[in-house]
């Protein structure tokens, strides 16, 4: 009994310690043809893109993969397929601390709008770390930064009408 308690305590401590570490993959789940678990290496093999931001006068060049290309890889409808009920789809981005924001699928598709939303893994050539997490979103055309989710862990695709 004592041993079980100690084991449970160790497991709990282990979880707490892990909770402070940035996730090493981004999960893409929900209404997708192909669920994904993307590491930095996986992203490095995909088409790369950059977004330049200015925050309080400090410029940062983020590099990563367009969120649209991530969704395309997961088999989410795009371009001419994105019509009818598919247009009731939203994309929920979740951070390690539980913070969540939503994009509509339409606003992520370059066939609809030039909205450059990046799933970034580097800033100024260096891998993201600390409070940025290993991955983050950069919604470069949003005025506030609230949808540029740091510590990104999960992308969930939800089609409201089927």
């Amino acid at each position, binding site marked *: 009994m004592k041993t079980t308690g100690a084991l449970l305590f160790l497991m709990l401590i282990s979880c707490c310690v892990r909770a402070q570490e940035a996730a090493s993959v981004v999960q893409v789940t929900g209404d997708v043809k192909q669920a994904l678990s993307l590491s930095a290496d996986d992203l490095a093999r995909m088409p790369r893109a950059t977004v330049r931001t200015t925050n*309080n*006068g*400090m*410029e940062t060049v983020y590099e990563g993969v367009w969120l649209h290309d991530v969704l395309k890889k997961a088999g989410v409808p795009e371009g001419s397929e994105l019509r009818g009920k598919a247009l009731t789809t939203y994309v929920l981005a979740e951070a390690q601390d*539980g913070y969540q924001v939503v994009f509509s699928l339409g606003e992520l598709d370059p066939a609809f709008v030039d909205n450059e939303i990046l799933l970034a893994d580097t800033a*100024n050539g260096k891998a993201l770390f600390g*409070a940025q997490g290993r991955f983050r979103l950069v919604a470069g055309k949003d005025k506030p930064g609230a949808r540029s989710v740091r*510590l990104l862990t999960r992308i969930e695709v939800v089609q409201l009408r089927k």
Partner: protein
Amino acid sequence: MKTSASRVVLFTFAMVAAGTAADFNWNLPKGFPKPAVPPANPMSEAKVELGRYLFYDTRLSFNDKESCATCHKQELAFTDGRAHAEGTTGQLHPRSSMSLVNVAYATSLTWANPALDSLEEQALGPMLNTEPIELGLKGHEQEFLEKLRREPVYQRLFPLAFPDEANLYTLANVTKALAAFERTIISMRSPYDRYRWSGDMAAISDAAKRGELVFSSSERGRCFRCHDGWNFSSVRYAGSQEHPAEDSMRGFFNTGGSLYAAPNRGVYEYTKHAEDLGKFRAPTLRNVAVTGPYMHDGSFATMEEVIDHYAVGGKYEDPNKSRILQPLKLSEGDKKDLVEFLKSLTDDELLRDPRWSNPWVKQ
């Protein structure tokens, strides 16, 4: 031709002696923006040096007891360690001295005046205010300027700082020099800066790294919502757009930290708008570990007390309290980590660098 050549030589000499606005060396780490400087008061090395002497000169008070540095001490990140600043006649100010660190980037100045955005104009406040008396120069202006005129240091520096002016010893030139010096008080070299911007992973402790996560999380500390960006406060920098009128209230919050009785009613004191009651600036958190006591009235002695105040969503209920403030789910460990993170913002170089020390004291 000879005259023209002489003029060129003289002009060049004057520019080299004074330092020009364009070539002013801000000595900023890579990536940080230059501050905005008003065209009417370009930076020069000579003006900064003059401003430094003035900043530490007790002749700036009518009774030769206090200088700017009395309430803005370098070793305390240019605060004074008091809940209420004390003027040269012993009168207490209703508010605590604000840090001058990175004041060159401030979108507006003082605790609660969104309309005051000129350092030159601000410097006149402590010099001439009478309620309360700070430096007490009102009515003593000519006597004060005469004292400056008689000082050999100023006889050398005023002509270098203002090479094109016939009338050197004016309050306007004093405030220009003070503002130029204050603009150089820039803090960007804390351990956290080395960690965040230079990638030195060993620069801060694991506790401080965890504290950064709490600070930056919308679901946990939410601190970044008011203390955002590299300055942990909104900034104005060279090339930035002027803040539109509707944005002038950015950076002022009612945090339910006091009962906001007169004369500490915040922005309301200036606008008389009911919705501005209790709104005060969210100051930069750089060097916050040495700038206590905290808040506009010094009502919290320690960083731990401030964190406890925010953890309960603001000590007092108030109809104007910012909706950003909500009770936080912070463990005692989270709070300790936050404190460690805040400590990592202390820039020891700033606290000791002779560039900002008292020049009247021979080293």
